[in-house]
């Protein structure tokens, strides 16, 4: 039917016209157009660094456009700061949350719009009632009295959405909301989005997961390197169609992988016990081993000890008891420095907390573990020329955009931040590469590349330990799959024979072995 025909009868709530945004010489948005309709979900699709977050930050008043105009309900508006956006009924849930951790859910939601009784006293009763009312209306269940630091990421996201709704949002921007969610939480979020649109709210959804766009969105704007490519009606296309429009070429979703006989065991964990932050046992007598030339995937639902396990291996968390060995050497309770020197590399789960120094530029970030070694430093003096050459090499090889080694990590798009980390860790050429959620926030093209890199590593007879909430990823890339449940490995299967149902059952605690 075509986009024009389908949208004819709909009410336009937002029109962004010819939006251009430059950072210095760099054009992040190049006359992009976006229309949002009442009660509809409009998806934004584009490679890492295409300019999606930038466009939304402009709509939310965080950046001002270099040129172009914005109309809300047909009227031209000048959104110079987020308060104006909020006044116009725009709410935004950022890629990285902005909640106050020691506050409760309700306190966070009402922040800045606190209901006040006589004598300017905070009326907490009314606040709680209001919060409860909205959360029931849209099926966004949360415990209003729980502290943010105690609830899961998925719950925190609900709090962000509630916060926007509490402030009267009619148009909700969700920037990669599913990147941090587990598959179950994603299903729930899509249901919430449906509830919201039913009530007449409009949603702008950024996602790299094509399946979600197909499931949840009505229209999809495709941006490539800042340029407006097309706006499509989602029901008239499919995943392949979206992907090729976005990247400009065919993308293969399953990476080709030859059979490879695994070598001898290189890494092993025996009866490992690790406690979490609350001093509760999180990893409970866990046993695991990885061979040379194999990719071991770890499947499991978030919160079953994965984080603690990784931190224990990499020296970031204390091991209570048990043994971790690599290449025949005991590395239990080694420092991170010692672990790194035993040729273990680690793509961390939390890229902004652990993976990058955001105030460093790309080149400085590429040498985080090697800054003191030749050729990056000689006699304690940094050799910037060599560092830059090295950074350029990595940027080229891993397609970090833009190709500027002196760009501060903070100003990179989320996906490109991730690429810098992957480039650094893979280039360390480790004997064991630990990859935790390595493709989180990456576009399909980049995912394909990362998977290839992992497989290449394995083909070089190195060991890879892949941790992911994405079962598809685990099943496509791994050679063997271990399932973790309540801090224990409840089963190990060959990836060739793995079935999604059995894995799902084991992840929920119904394992057999």
């Amino acid at each position, binding site marked *: 039917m075509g986009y024009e025909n389908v949208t004819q009868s709909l009410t336009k709530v937002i029109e962004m016209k010819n939006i251009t945004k430059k950072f210095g010489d760099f054009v992040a948005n190049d006359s992009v157009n976006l229309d949002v309709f009442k009660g509809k979900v409009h998806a934004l699709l584009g490679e890492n660094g295409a300019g999606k977050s930038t466009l939304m930050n402009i709509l939310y008043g965080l950046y001002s456009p270099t040129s172009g105009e914005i109309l809300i309900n047909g009227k031209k508006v000048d959104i110079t700061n987020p308060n104006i956006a909020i006044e116009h009924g725009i709410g935004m849930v950022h890629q990285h949350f902005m909640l106050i951790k020691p506050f409760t859910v309700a306190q966070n939601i009402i922040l800045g719009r606190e209901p006040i009784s006589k004598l300017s006293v905070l009326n907490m009763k009314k606040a709680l009632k209001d919060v409860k009312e909205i959360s029931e209306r849209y099926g966004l269940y949360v415990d209003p009295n729980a502290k943010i630091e105690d609830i899961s990421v998925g719950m925190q996201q609900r709090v962000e959405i509630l916060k926007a709704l509490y402030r009267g949002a009619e148009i909700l921007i969700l920037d990669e909301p599913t990147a941090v969610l587990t598959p179950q939480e994603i299903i729930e979020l899509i249901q919430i989005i449906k509830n919201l649109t039913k009530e007449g709210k409009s949603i702008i959804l950024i996602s790299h997961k094509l399946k979600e766009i197909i499931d949840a969105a009505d229209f999809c704007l495709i941006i490539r390197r800042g340029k407006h490519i097309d706006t499509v009606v989602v029901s008239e296309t499919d995943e392949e169609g979206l992907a090729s429009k976005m990247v400009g070429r065919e993308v293969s979703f399953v990476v080709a992988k030859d059979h490879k006989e695994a070598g001898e065991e290189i890494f092993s964990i025996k009866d490992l016990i690790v406690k979490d932050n609350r001093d509760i046992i999180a990893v409970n007598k866990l046993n695991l081993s990885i061979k040379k030339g194999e990719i071991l995937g770890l499947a499991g639902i978030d919160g079953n000890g994965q984080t603690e396990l990784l931190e224990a291996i990499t020296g970031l968390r204390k091991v209570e008891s048990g043994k971790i060995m690599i290449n025949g050497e005991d590395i239990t309770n080694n420092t991170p420095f010692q672990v790194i*020197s035993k040729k273990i590399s680690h793509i961390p789960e939390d890229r902004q907390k652990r993976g990058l120094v955001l105030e460093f530029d790309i080149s400085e970030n590429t040498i985080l*573990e090697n*800054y003191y070694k030749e050729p990056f*430093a000689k006699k*304690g003096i*940094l050799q910037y020329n060599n560092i830059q050459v090295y950074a350029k090499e990595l940027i080229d090889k891993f397609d970090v955009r833009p190709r500027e080694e002196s760009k501060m990590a903070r100003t990179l798009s989320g996906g490109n931040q991730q690429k810098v980390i992957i480039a650094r860790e893979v280039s360390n050429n480790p004997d064991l590469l630990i990859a935790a959620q390595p493709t989180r926030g990456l576009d399909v093209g980049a995912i394909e590349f990362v998977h290839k890199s992992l497989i290449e590593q394995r083909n070089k007879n190195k060991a890879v330990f892949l941790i992911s909430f994405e079962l598809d990823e685990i099943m496509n890339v791994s050679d063997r799959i271990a399932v973790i449940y309540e801090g224990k490995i409840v089963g190990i299967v060959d990836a060739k024979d793995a079935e999604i149902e059995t894995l799902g059952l084991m992840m929920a605690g119904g394992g057999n072995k």
Partner: protein
Amino acid sequence: MKLKLKELRKTLYIFATEKTIGFTLISIFLGLVVGAIFLAAAGFNPFQAYWVMLLGVFSKPSYISYTIIRATPLILTGLSIAFAFKTGLFNIGAEGQFIIGSVAATAAGYFLHLPLLIHIPVVIISAVLAAGIWGGIAGYFKAKFGVHEVISTIMLNWIALYFQNFLIYTKGFQKPGGETSYSIQPTANMMILKTWKQSEAGREWLLQHPFWKDLLRTPMNWGFVIAILMAILVWFILNKTALGYRLRAVGFNKFAAEYGGINVNKNMIISMFIAGALAGLAGALQVVGVSHKVTLIAAMEGYGFDGIAVALIANSNALGCILAGLLFGALKYGGTKIQMFPVKAPSEVINIVIGSIVFFISIPKLIKVILTRKNKKEGTK
């Protein structure tokens, strides 16, 4: 060569976009305006007062020399705080480290008898080590017990102050009959041409050369040169060495630093040691170059606290500390001039002028600092 140019372009870009210099100049101007309003309100002619201040700083070689002498310790305490700040620590303890540095310098200068060219370095090194350890204690407490450096350094300041007073009343150190210590040995004195100035020939020569006579009237010494060298050294360490990389990484994001194999605790101690050493050097230079002894002190003298302002004005840039220290030195020294005839303003007014300059510079900066801290915590994009 091409890379160097690129680096330069990057620095210039940051300079221009962050508008640091412009911003600082505007703040200084606003501070002067507010000071003028206060002066006028108190019944003084602000133009006259500022003119007197200006003359009081620049009109004679000796005035310029005094200004530089005033500025020297401030540059160093400023550096101490700026250095700590760049590595993620807030060193309120420069005050106490300064005291420890001056006490150690006096002790080494008085008790040791060494040849001329060796004595001064020995004095300075002992002071730097002592103050470095003093600063390192705060770093150690933070690393080992998680005690915030602001709290521990404030306490260490008071301990240092009473320690100095205690020593001054200690036999063997106290100069009999006075509330001061003995003076350091002449071999530890760093004043320029000290003996020659007082010699027969020197006095005669100076009589015929009024410019030099006026200049050498002051306790001119090598301290300022050392302070400038230190600023360059600090800049070099932070930006060009592996140690600086490590310290900055810890300062910006200690979780990432830890993940990258950097020993966060150890580097916090190193950082506080260096910060303490810099403030201690300020104290040592004050002793070998100007005061030659330590005196009973009733309250904090403020070298460390003024250093906080200097670091703020300099935006924690090591080379900026030189200029900020000079500005501060000029205000302090020029300020004393308007207390005298013909303006006769009370010294409080000068402090208001200084205070408002610092206020205008630091308030937006503090906000900036708080914002970036917050960003770091919440992790915005």
